[in-house]
Protein backbone atom coordinates (compact mmCIF):
# COMPACT_ATOMS: atom_id res chain seq x y z
CA UNK A 1 0.00 0.00 0.00
CA UNK A 2 2.79 2.42 0.90
CA UNK A 3 4.40 1.50 -2.40
CA UNK A 4 1.24 2.41 -4.26
CA UNK A 5 0.99 5.73 -2.45
CA UNK A 6 4.59 6.53 -3.37
CA UNK A 7 3.81 5.68 -7.00
CA UNK A 8 0.70 7.83 -6.69
CA UNK A 9 2.71 10.82 -5.50
CA UNK A 10 5.03 10.50 -8.51
CA UNK A 11 2.11 10.27 -10.92
CA UNK A 12 0.30 12.99 -8.96
CA UNK A 13 3.25 15.35 -9.34
CA UNK A 14 3.05 15.09 -13.11
CA UNK A 15 -0.74 15.45 -13.07
CA UNK A 16 -0.41 18.48 -10.78
CA UNK A 17 2.11 20.11 -13.11
CA UNK A 18 -0.09 19.49 -16.15
CA UNK A 19 -3.25 20.72 -14.47
CA UNK A 20 -1.78 24.04 -13.30
CA UNK A 21 -1.51 25.24 -16.89
CA UNK A 22 -4.98 23.97 -17.67
CA UNK A 23 -6.62 25.72 -14.71
CA UNK A 24 -4.69 28.91 -15.43
CA UNK A 25 -6.10 29.15 -18.95
CA UNK A 26 -9.56 28.11 -17.76
CA UNK A 27 -9.59 30.77 -15.05
CA UNK A 28 -8.27 33.56 -17.23
CA UNK A 29 -9.89 32.94 -20.60
CA UNK A 30 -12.91 30.78 -19.67
CA UNK A 31 -11.61 28.25 -22.17
CA UNK A 32 -11.44 24.63 -21.09
CA UNK A 33 -8.56 23.80 -23.41
CA UNK A 34 -9.05 20.31 -24.83
CA UNK A 35 -5.79 20.64 -26.77
CA UNK A 36 -3.83 20.88 -23.52
CA UNK A 37 -3.14 17.14 -23.52
CA UNK A 38 -1.97 17.11 -27.12
CA UNK A 39 0.22 20.13 -26.43
CA UNK A 40 1.80 17.94 -23.74
CA UNK A 41 2.34 15.24 -26.39
CA UNK A 42 3.99 17.74 -28.71
CA UNK A 43 6.24 18.92 -25.86
CA UNK A 44 7.35 15.34 -25.21
CA UNK A 45 8.04 14.66 -28.91
CA UNK A 46 9.95 17.94 -29.30
CA UNK A 47 12.33 16.74 -26.60
CA UNK A 48 12.61 13.41 -28.44
CA UNK A 49 13.46 15.25 -31.65
CA UNK A 50 16.11 17.48 -30.11
CA UNK A 51 17.40 14.70 -27.86
CA UNK A 52 17.98 12.59 -30.98
CA UNK A 53 19.76 15.45 -32.74
CA UNK A 54 21.99 16.10 -29.75
CA UNK A 55 22.73 12.38 -29.38
CA UNK A 56 24.00 12.36 -32.97
CA UNK A 57 26.58 14.95 -32.00
CA UNK A 58 27.68 12.18 -29.65
CA UNK A 59 30.25 12.45 -26.92
CA UNK A 60 28.90 13.41 -23.56
CA UNK A 61 25.51 14.37 -25.07
CA UNK A 62 24.76 10.71 -25.77
CA UNK A 63 25.83 9.56 -22.33
CA UNK A 64 23.34 9.23 -19.49
CA UNK A 65 23.13 11.93 -16.84
CA UNK A 66 24.63 10.49 -13.65
CA UNK A 67 22.44 7.68 -12.31
CA UNK A 68 19.48 8.65 -14.50
CA UNK A 69 18.26 6.75 -17.55
CA UNK A 70 18.09 9.77 -19.86
CA UNK A 71 21.00 11.35 -21.66
CA UNK A 72 22.47 14.84 -21.43
CA UNK A 73 20.94 15.38 -24.86
CA UNK A 74 17.43 14.86 -23.47
CA UNK A 75 18.19 17.07 -20.50
CA UNK A 76 19.41 19.91 -22.71
CA UNK A 77 16.53 19.40 -25.12
CA UNK A 78 14.24 20.69 -22.36
CA UNK A 79 15.33 24.15 -23.48
CA UNK A 80 14.30 24.06 -27.18
CA UNK A 81 11.21 21.99 -26.28
CA UNK A 82 10.07 24.62 -23.78
CA UNK A 83 10.77 27.51 -26.13
CA UNK A 84 8.94 25.92 -29.07
CA UNK A 85 6.06 24.84 -26.83
CA UNK A 86 5.65 28.42 -25.58
CA UNK A 87 5.70 29.66 -29.16
CA UNK A 88 3.17 27.00 -30.15
CA UNK A 89 0.79 27.91 -27.30
CA UNK A 90 0.96 31.63 -28.10
CA UNK A 91 0.65 30.88 -31.82
CA UNK A 92 -2.46 28.74 -31.34
CA UNK A 93 -4.03 31.50 -29.28
CA UNK A 94 -3.22 34.07 -31.99
CA UNK A 95 -4.50 32.00 -34.87
CA UNK A 96 -7.48 30.24 -33.30
CA UNK A 97 -8.77 31.84 -30.10
CA UNK A 98 -7.96 35.51 -30.58
CA UNK A 99 -10.14 35.90 -33.69
CA UNK A 100 -12.91 34.12 -31.77
CA UNK A 101 -12.55 36.53 -28.83
CA UNK A 102 -12.67 39.47 -31.22
CA UNK A 103 -15.88 38.08 -32.71
CA UNK A 104 -17.33 37.62 -29.23
CA UNK A 105 -17.66 33.86 -29.60
CA UNK A 106 -19.27 31.83 -26.84
CA UNK A 107 -16.91 29.79 -24.67
CA UNK A 108 -18.51 26.58 -25.92
CA UNK A 109 -17.47 27.52 -29.45
CA UNK A 110 -13.89 27.99 -28.30
CA UNK A 111 -14.09 24.70 -26.38
CA UNK A 112 -15.08 22.86 -29.55
CA UNK A 113 -12.38 24.66 -31.52
CA UNK A 114 -9.86 23.41 -28.96
CA UNK A 115 -10.96 19.83 -29.71
CA UNK A 116 -10.14 20.58 -33.34
CA UNK A 117 -6.71 21.91 -32.34
CA UNK A 118 -6.18 18.72 -30.30
CA UNK A 119 -6.93 16.49 -33.32
CA UNK A 120 -4.76 18.64 -35.55
CA UNK A 121 -1.75 18.45 -33.25
CA UNK A 122 -2.15 14.70 -32.81
CA UNK A 123 -2.38 14.29 -36.58
CA UNK A 124 0.92 16.12 -36.99
CA UNK A 125 2.55 13.86 -34.39
CA UNK A 126 1.24 10.76 -36.23
CA UNK A 127 2.55 12.04 -39.55
CA UNK A 128 6.02 12.86 -38.29
CA UNK A 129 6.69 10.11 -35.74
CA UNK A 130 4.14 7.42 -36.62
CA UNK A 131 1.98 5.38 -34.27
CA UNK A 132 4.82 3.41 -32.63
CA UNK A 133 5.97 3.84 -29.07
CA UNK A 134 9.14 5.81 -28.55
CA UNK A 135 11.47 5.92 -25.60
CA UNK A 136 13.93 8.61 -24.62
CA UNK A 137 16.36 5.82 -23.78
CA UNK A 138 16.45 2.09 -24.26
CA UNK A 139 17.51 -0.26 -21.55
CA UNK A 140 17.03 -0.75 -17.86
CA UNK A 141 16.23 1.99 -15.44
CA UNK A 142 17.92 1.88 -12.10
CA UNK A 143 15.88 1.60 -8.92
CA UNK A 144 16.46 2.53 -5.35
CA UNK A 145 14.80 0.62 -2.55
CA UNK A 146 13.47 2.72 0.29
CA UNK A 147 12.22 -0.37 2.09
CA UNK A 148 11.91 -3.96 0.85
CA UNK A 149 8.66 -3.26 -0.95
CA UNK A 150 8.80 0.47 -1.52
CA UNK A 151 11.03 1.26 -4.43
CA UNK A 152 11.51 4.29 -6.57
CA UNK A 153 13.15 4.70 -9.93
CA UNK A 154 16.00 7.14 -9.75
CA UNK A 155 14.32 9.02 -12.59
CA UNK A 156 11.29 9.57 -10.42
CA UNK A 157 13.24 11.63 -7.93
CA UNK A 158 14.29 13.87 -10.81
CA UNK A 159 10.67 14.03 -11.99
CA UNK A 160 9.40 15.16 -8.63
CA UNK A 161 12.11 17.77 -8.13
CA UNK A 162 11.52 19.30 -11.57
CA UNK A 163 7.73 19.13 -11.30
CA UNK A 164 7.53 20.79 -7.91
CA UNK A 165 10.27 23.24 -8.82
CA UNK A 166 8.31 24.36 -11.87
CA UNK A 167 5.11 24.57 -9.86
CA UNK A 168 6.82 26.63 -7.14
CA UNK A 169 8.24 28.97 -9.77
CA UNK A 170 4.80 29.53 -11.29
CA UNK A 171 3.27 30.03 -7.86
CA UNK A 172 5.84 32.69 -6.98
CA UNK A 173 5.38 34.33 -10.38
CA UNK A 174 1.63 34.59 -9.79
CA UNK A 175 1.94 35.78 -6.18
CA UNK A 176 4.85 38.22 -6.42
CA UNK A 177 5.27 39.72 -9.86
CA UNK A 178 3.24 42.53 -11.35
CA UNK A 179 2.35 40.42 -14.38
CA UNK A 180 1.34 37.50 -12.17
CA UNK A 181 -0.90 39.67 -10.03
CA UNK A 182 -2.44 41.18 -13.15
CA UNK A 183 -3.15 37.67 -14.46
CA UNK A 184 -4.99 36.89 -11.22
CA UNK A 185 -6.82 40.19 -11.47
CA UNK A 186 -7.81 39.36 -15.03
CA UNK A 187 -9.14 35.95 -13.98
CA UNK A 188 -11.06 37.55 -11.14
CA UNK A 189 -12.68 40.48 -12.93
CA UNK A 190 -11.85 41.10 -16.61
CA UNK A 191 -14.00 44.22 -16.89
CA UNK A 192 -12.30 45.90 -13.95
CA UNK A 193 -8.90 44.78 -15.23
CA UNK A 194 -9.63 46.57 -18.49
CA UNK A 195 -10.70 49.83 -16.82
CA UNK A 196 -7.58 49.65 -14.63
CA UNK A 197 -5.62 50.08 -17.83
CA UNK A 198 -4.45 46.48 -18.06
CA UNK A 199 -3.73 45.47 -21.64
CA UNK A 200 -5.60 42.20 -21.86
CA UNK A 201 -4.17 40.85 -25.10
CA UNK A 202 -0.63 41.28 -23.83
CA UNK A 203 -1.52 39.47 -20.60
CA UNK A 204 -3.20 36.62 -22.45
CA UNK A 205 0.05 36.14 -24.30
CA UNK A 206 1.74 35.74 -20.92
CA UNK A 207 -0.93 33.29 -19.77
CA UNK A 208 -0.47 31.11 -22.87
CA UNK A 209 3.28 31.40 -22.54
CA UNK A 210 3.22 30.11 -18.97
CA UNK A 211 0.84 27.34 -20.00
CA UNK A 212 3.16 26.44 -22.89
CA UNK A 213 6.13 26.20 -20.54
CA UNK A 214 4.29 23.94 -18.10
CA UNK A 215 2.97 21.79 -20.94
CA UNK A 216 6.46 21.11 -22.29
CA UNK A 217 7.91 20.32 -18.87
CA UNK A 218 5.07 17.95 -18.00
CA UNK A 219 5.33 16.34 -21.45
CA UNK A 220 9.02 15.58 -21.06
CA UNK A 221 8.58 14.34 -17.49
CA UNK A 222 5.67 12.15 -18.54
CA UNK A 223 7.85 10.84 -21.36
CA UNK A 224 10.63 9.99 -18.91
CA UNK A 225 8.17 8.27 -16.57
CA UNK A 226 6.42 6.17 -19.23
CA UNK A 227 6.87 6.15 -22.98
CA UNK A 228 5.95 8.38 -25.91
CA UNK A 229 2.94 7.63 -28.07
CA UNK A 230 0.71 9.97 -30.05
CA UNK A 231 -2.29 9.37 -27.76
CA UNK A 232 -0.37 9.99 -24.53
CA UNK A 233 -1.58 13.52 -23.89
CA UNK A 234 -5.14 13.00 -25.02
CA UNK A 235 -5.56 10.13 -22.56
CA UNK A 236 -3.69 12.06 -19.88
CA UNK A 237 -6.24 14.87 -20.26
CA UNK A 238 -8.86 12.96 -18.27
CA UNK A 239 -7.03 12.93 -14.91
CA UNK A 240 -6.00 16.54 -15.62
CA UNK A 241 -9.63 17.56 -16.08
CA UNK A 242 -10.57 15.72 -12.93
CA UNK A 243 -7.75 17.36 -10.95
CA UNK A 244 -8.70 20.82 -12.18
CA UNK A 245 -12.38 20.32 -11.42
CA UNK A 246 -11.51 18.93 -8.01
CA UNK A 247 -9.37 21.98 -7.32
CA UNK A 248 -11.82 24.56 -8.61
CA UNK A 249 -11.71 26.86 -11.62
CA UNK A 250 -8.57 28.95 -11.79
CA UNK A 251 -7.15 27.77 -8.46
CA UNK A 252 -3.46 26.86 -8.69
CA UNK A 253 -3.26 25.41 -5.19
CA UNK A 254 -6.49 23.54 -5.93
CA UNK A 255 -5.00 22.02 -9.07
CA UNK A 256 -1.90 20.93 -7.14
CA UNK A 257 -3.95 19.24 -4.43
CA UNK A 258 -6.32 17.82 -7.04
CA UNK A 259 -3.39 16.43 -9.02
CA UNK A 260 -1.94 14.64 -6.00
CA UNK A 261 -5.35 13.23 -5.04
CA UNK A 262 -5.85 11.94 -8.58
CA UNK A 263 -2.41 10.36 -8.75
CA UNK A 264 -2.73 8.60 -5.40
CA UNK A 265 -6.36 7.55 -5.97
CA UNK A 266 -5.54 6.07 -9.36
CA UNK A 267 -2.54 4.09 -8.11
CA UNK A 268 -4.15 2.91 -4.89
CA UNK A 269 -7.21 1.76 -6.85
CA UNK A 270 -5.02 -0.84 -8.56
CA UNK A 271 -4.88 -2.69 -5.22
CA UNK A 272 -8.61 -3.35 -5.55
CA UNK A 273 -9.36 -3.02 -9.25
CA UNK A 274 -7.90 -4.15 -12.53
CA UNK A 275 -5.44 -1.40 -13.59
CA UNK A 276 -7.47 -0.89 -16.77
CA UNK A 277 -10.06 0.84 -14.60
CA UNK A 278 -7.59 3.52 -13.47
CA UNK A 279 -9.07 6.21 -15.74
CA UNK A 280 -12.53 5.32 -14.46
CA UNK A 281 -11.38 6.19 -10.95
CA UNK A 282 -10.52 9.69 -12.14
CA UNK A 283 -13.93 9.92 -13.76
CA UNK A 284 -15.79 8.78 -10.65
CA UNK A 285 -13.98 11.31 -8.45
CA UNK A 286 -14.76 14.02 -10.98
CA UNK A 287 -18.44 13.11 -11.04
CA UNK A 288 -18.65 13.02 -7.24
CA UNK A 289 -17.03 16.44 -7.03
CA UNK A 290 -19.40 17.85 -9.63
CA UNK A 291 -22.37 16.55 -7.67
CA UNK A 292 -21.32 17.57 -4.16
CA UNK A 293 -18.87 20.45 -4.62
CA UNK A 294 -19.52 21.88 -8.10
CA UNK A 295 -17.11 24.76 -7.49
CA UNK A 296 -14.36 22.39 -6.40
CA UNK A 297 -12.69 22.02 -3.06
CA UNK A 298 -10.71 25.24 -3.36
CA UNK A 299 -13.22 26.93 -5.66
CA UNK A 300 -13.92 30.59 -5.27
CA UNK A 301 -17.34 31.45 -4.08
CA UNK A 302 -18.91 33.82 -6.55
CA UNK A 303 -18.71 37.35 -5.21
Amino acid sequence: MVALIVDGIVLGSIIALGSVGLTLIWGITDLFNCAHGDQITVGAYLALLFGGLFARIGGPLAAPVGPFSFSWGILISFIPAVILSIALAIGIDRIVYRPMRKAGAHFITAFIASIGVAWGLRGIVYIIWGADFHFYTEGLRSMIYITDTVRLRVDEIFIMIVAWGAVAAVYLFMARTKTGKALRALADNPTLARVSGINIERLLMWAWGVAGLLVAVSGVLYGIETQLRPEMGWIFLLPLFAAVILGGKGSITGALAGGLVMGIAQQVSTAFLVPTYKPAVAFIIMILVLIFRPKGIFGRRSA
Partner: protein
Amino acid sequence: MSTLRMENVTSGYGSMEVLHGISLEVPEGKIVTILGPNGSGKTTILRTVFGEIRPTEGRVIYRDQDISGMHPDNVARLGMGYVPQEANVFAALTVQENLEMGAFLRNDDYRPRMEEIFGMFPEINPRRKSRAGELSGGMRQMLAIGRALMLNPETLLLDEPSTGLAPFLVDQIFEKIQELNRSGVTVLLVEQNAQALRCADLAYILEGGEKKAEGTAQELMNDAEIAKHYLGR
Protein backbone atom coordinates in the same frame (compact mmCIF):
# COMPACT_ATOMS: atom_id res chain seq x y z
CA MET B 1 -13.73 75.35 -20.18
CA SER B 2 -15.06 71.84 -20.15
CA THR B 3 -12.78 68.92 -19.43
CA LEU B 4 -15.15 66.34 -20.81
CA ARG B 5 -17.85 66.77 -23.43
CA MET B 6 -20.32 64.46 -25.08
CA GLU B 7 -21.69 65.68 -28.39
CA ASN B 8 -24.90 64.08 -29.58
CA VAL B 9 -23.84 60.62 -28.51
CA THR B 10 -25.89 57.63 -29.56
CA SER B 11 -24.75 54.39 -28.00
CA GLY B 12 -25.91 50.99 -26.82
CA TYR B 13 -25.34 47.26 -26.92
CA GLY B 14 -25.52 45.54 -30.28
CA SER B 15 -28.76 46.53 -31.93
CA MET B 16 -30.21 47.86 -28.68
CA GLU B 17 -29.82 51.62 -28.60
CA VAL B 18 -29.69 52.94 -25.03
CA LEU B 19 -28.58 56.56 -25.43
CA HIS B 20 -30.42 58.64 -28.01
CA GLY B 21 -28.27 61.63 -28.81
CA ILE B 22 -26.92 62.81 -25.48
CA SER B 23 -24.92 66.02 -25.12
CA LEU B 24 -23.37 67.05 -21.87
CA GLU B 25 -20.44 68.94 -20.46
CA VAL B 26 -18.28 68.45 -17.42
CA PRO B 27 -16.44 71.68 -16.58
CA GLU B 28 -12.98 71.42 -15.08
CA GLY B 29 -12.86 71.21 -11.31
CA LYS B 30 -16.60 70.68 -10.85
CA ILE B 31 -18.78 67.84 -9.63
CA VAL B 32 -21.40 66.97 -12.22
CA THR B 33 -24.17 64.56 -11.35
CA ILE B 34 -26.33 62.59 -13.74
CA LEU B 35 -29.50 61.61 -11.99
CA GLY B 36 -31.93 59.09 -13.34
CA PRO B 37 -33.92 55.97 -12.58
CA ASN B 38 -32.82 52.40 -13.27
CA GLY B 39 -32.35 51.67 -16.94
CA SER B 40 -32.18 55.32 -17.96
CA GLY B 41 -28.75 54.86 -19.50
CA LYS B 42 -26.56 56.30 -16.74
CA THR B 43 -24.08 53.45 -16.74
CA THR B 44 -24.04 53.40 -20.54
CA ILE B 45 -22.91 57.04 -20.50
CA LEU B 46 -19.91 56.20 -18.32
CA ARG B 47 -19.06 53.08 -20.30
CA THR B 48 -19.19 55.04 -23.53
CA VAL B 49 -16.97 57.79 -22.12
CA PHE B 50 -14.44 55.26 -20.87
CA GLY B 51 -14.27 53.44 -24.18
CA GLU B 52 -15.91 50.20 -23.14
CA ILE B 53 -18.55 50.88 -25.79
CA ARG B 54 -18.02 52.74 -29.04
CA PRO B 55 -20.68 55.35 -29.74
CA THR B 56 -22.61 54.69 -32.94
CA GLU B 57 -23.02 58.43 -33.51
CA GLY B 58 -21.60 61.57 -31.99
CA ARG B 59 -18.31 62.19 -30.25
CA VAL B 60 -16.73 62.10 -26.83
CA ILE B 61 -14.18 64.86 -26.35
CA TYR B 62 -11.69 64.87 -23.49
CA ARG B 63 -9.34 67.84 -23.20
CA ASP B 64 -9.84 68.77 -26.85
CA GLN B 65 -9.14 65.22 -28.01
CA ASP B 66 -11.71 62.95 -29.64
CA ILE B 67 -11.70 59.80 -27.53
CA SER B 68 -14.79 58.11 -29.00
CA GLY B 69 -14.15 54.38 -28.99
CA MET B 70 -10.61 54.71 -27.65
CA HIS B 71 -9.49 51.63 -25.68
CA PRO B 72 -10.03 51.88 -21.90
CA ASP B 73 -6.32 51.48 -21.13
CA ASN B 74 -5.56 54.49 -23.31
CA VAL B 75 -8.37 56.50 -21.75
CA ALA B 76 -6.87 55.68 -18.34
CA ARG B 77 -3.50 56.94 -19.62
CA LEU B 78 -5.10 60.30 -20.44
CA GLY B 79 -5.84 60.81 -16.74
CA MET B 80 -9.35 59.48 -16.33
CA GLY B 81 -10.38 57.05 -13.62
CA TYR B 82 -13.53 54.93 -13.56
CA VAL B 83 -15.24 53.25 -10.63
CA PRO B 84 -17.91 50.86 -11.95
CA GLN B 85 -21.02 50.19 -9.92
CA GLU B 86 -20.83 46.46 -9.47
CA ALA B 87 -17.88 44.14 -9.04
CA ASN B 88 -15.65 47.18 -8.66
CA VAL B 89 -12.91 45.45 -6.68
CA PHE B 90 -10.83 42.34 -7.43
CA ALA B 91 -12.52 40.13 -4.85
CA ALA B 92 -9.87 37.40 -4.93
CA LEU B 93 -6.96 39.84 -4.49
CA THR B 94 -5.92 41.52 -1.27
CA VAL B 95 -6.67 45.18 -0.55
CA GLN B 96 -3.06 46.08 -1.24
CA GLU B 97 -2.99 44.08 -4.49
CA ASN B 98 -6.14 45.88 -5.60
CA LEU B 99 -4.35 49.20 -5.23
CA GLU B 100 -1.29 47.81 -7.02
CA MET B 101 -3.54 46.87 -9.94
CA GLY B 102 -4.86 50.42 -9.91
CA ALA B 103 -1.25 51.48 -10.44
CA PHE B 104 -0.69 48.98 -13.26
CA LEU B 105 0.15 51.71 -15.79
CA ARG B 106 2.69 53.35 -13.51
CA ASN B 107 6.32 52.42 -13.94
CA ASP B 108 7.56 54.59 -11.10
CA ASP B 109 7.33 53.86 -7.39
CA TYR B 110 3.62 53.85 -6.59
CA ARG B 111 4.02 53.20 -2.85
CA PRO B 112 3.88 56.85 -1.70
CA ARG B 113 0.59 57.19 -3.57
CA MET B 114 -0.68 54.00 -1.93
CA GLU B 115 0.11 55.43 1.51
CA GLU B 116 -1.73 58.63 0.56
CA ILE B 117 -4.77 56.58 -0.33
CA PHE B 118 -4.62 54.62 2.92
CA GLY B 119 -4.44 58.05 4.60
CA MET B 120 -7.51 59.17 2.68
CA PHE B 121 -9.43 56.01 3.61
CA PRO B 122 -8.06 55.06 7.03
CA GLU B 123 -10.83 52.45 7.42
CA ILE B 124 -9.19 50.08 4.96
CA ASN B 125 -5.63 50.62 6.21
CA PRO B 126 -5.72 47.82 8.81
CA ARG B 127 -7.18 45.44 6.20
CA ARG B 128 -4.29 45.62 3.70
CA LYS B 129 -3.74 41.87 3.65
CA SER B 130 -7.43 40.90 3.61
CA ARG B 131 -9.07 39.76 0.44
CA ALA B 132 -11.25 42.49 -1.00
CA GLY B 133 -14.15 40.03 -1.16
CA GLU B 134 -14.16 39.87 2.62
CA LEU B 135 -14.66 43.63 3.10
CA SER B 136 -17.95 45.25 4.10
CA GLY B 137 -19.88 47.22 1.47
CA GLY B 138 -18.61 50.60 2.66
CA MET B 139 -14.98 49.52 2.75
CA ARG B 140 -15.32 47.90 -0.64
CA GLN B 141 -16.57 51.17 -2.09
CA MET B 142 -13.63 53.04 -0.55
CA LEU B 143 -11.22 50.49 -1.97
CA ALA B 144 -12.89 50.78 -5.36
CA ILE B 145 -12.42 54.55 -5.35
CA GLY B 146 -8.89 54.16 -3.99
CA ARG B 147 -8.00 51.80 -6.84
CA ALA B 148 -9.16 54.35 -9.39
CA LEU B 149 -7.13 57.08 -7.66
CA MET B 150 -3.80 55.24 -7.90
CA LEU B 151 -3.02 56.88 -11.25
CA ASN B 152 -3.72 60.37 -9.87
CA PRO B 153 -6.58 60.91 -12.32
CA GLU B 154 -7.65 64.44 -13.13
CA THR B 155 -11.17 63.24 -13.83
CA LEU B 156 -13.07 60.54 -11.98
CA LEU B 157 -16.17 58.74 -13.22
CA LEU B 158 -18.27 57.20 -10.44
CA ASP B 159 -21.17 54.84 -11.00
CA GLU B 160 -23.69 54.93 -8.13
CA PRO B 161 -21.22 54.79 -5.27
CA SER B 162 -24.11 54.89 -2.78
CA THR B 163 -25.68 51.60 -3.91
CA GLY B 164 -26.43 49.25 -1.06
CA LEU B 165 -24.83 51.43 1.61
CA ALA B 166 -26.37 52.44 4.93
CA PRO B 167 -27.36 56.15 5.03
CA PHE B 168 -24.46 57.24 7.25
CA LEU B 169 -22.04 55.53 4.85
CA VAL B 170 -23.67 57.27 1.90
CA ASP B 171 -22.99 60.62 3.58
CA GLN B 172 -19.42 59.56 4.24
CA ILE B 173 -18.83 58.55 0.61
CA PHE B 174 -20.30 61.80 -0.72
CA GLU B 175 -18.09 63.74 1.71
CA LYS B 176 -15.04 61.88 0.40
CA ILE B 177 -16.05 62.76 -3.15
CA GLN B 178 -16.31 66.44 -2.23
CA GLU B 179 -12.95 66.23 -0.51
CA LEU B 180 -11.41 64.76 -3.65
CA ASN B 181 -12.99 67.47 -5.73
CA ARG B 182 -11.53 70.16 -3.49
CA SER B 183 -8.12 68.63 -4.07
CA GLY B 184 -8.61 69.31 -7.80
CA VAL B 185 -10.28 66.21 -9.22
CA THR B 186 -13.12 66.77 -11.67
CA VAL B 187 -15.97 64.37 -10.92
CA LEU B 188 -18.72 62.89 -13.07
CA LEU B 189 -21.09 61.13 -10.70
CA VAL B 190 -24.01 58.99 -11.80
CA GLU B 191 -26.70 58.38 -9.19
CA GLN B 192 -30.24 57.29 -8.47
CA ASN B 193 -30.00 58.80 -5.03
CA ALA B 194 -31.21 62.43 -5.19
CA GLN B 195 -28.95 63.20 -2.27
CA ALA B 196 -26.13 63.32 -4.79
CA LEU B 197 -27.44 66.70 -5.92
CA ARG B 198 -26.33 68.21 -2.64
CA CYS B 199 -22.68 67.63 -3.34
CA ALA B 200 -22.92 68.51 -7.06
CA ASP B 201 -22.27 71.78 -8.86
CA LEU B 202 -24.12 70.89 -12.05
CA ALA B 203 -26.64 68.20 -12.78
CA TYR B 204 -28.41 66.46 -15.61
CA ILE B 205 -31.57 64.46 -15.38
CA LEU B 206 -31.73 61.42 -17.60
CA GLU B 207 -34.66 59.22 -18.48
CA GLY B 208 -35.05 56.62 -21.20
CA GLY B 209 -31.68 57.50 -22.69
CA GLU B 210 -32.65 61.14 -23.13
CA LYS B 211 -31.72 64.28 -21.27
CA LYS B 212 -34.79 65.64 -19.47
CA ALA B 213 -33.28 68.59 -17.64
CA GLU B 214 -30.02 70.31 -16.89
CA GLY B 215 -28.80 73.13 -14.73
CA THR B 216 -26.99 73.91 -11.55
CA ALA B 217 -27.77 71.47 -8.76
CA GLN B 218 -29.44 74.33 -6.89
CA GLU B 219 -31.76 75.18 -9.80
CA LEU B 220 -32.87 71.60 -10.19
CA MET B 221 -33.49 71.17 -6.49
CA ASN B 222 -35.63 74.31 -6.46
CA ASP B 223 -37.65 73.35 -9.54
CA ALA B 224 -40.96 72.09 -8.22
CA GLU B 225 -41.79 70.13 -11.37
CA ILE B 226 -38.47 68.28 -11.37
CA ALA B 227 -38.56 67.70 -7.63
CA LYS B 228 -41.95 66.08 -8.01
CA HIS B 229 -41.10 63.89 -10.99
CA TYR B 230 -37.53 62.88 -10.42
CA LEU B 231 -36.46 63.60 -6.91
CA GLY B 232 -39.30 61.76 -5.21
CA ARG B 233 -40.57 64.69 -3.20
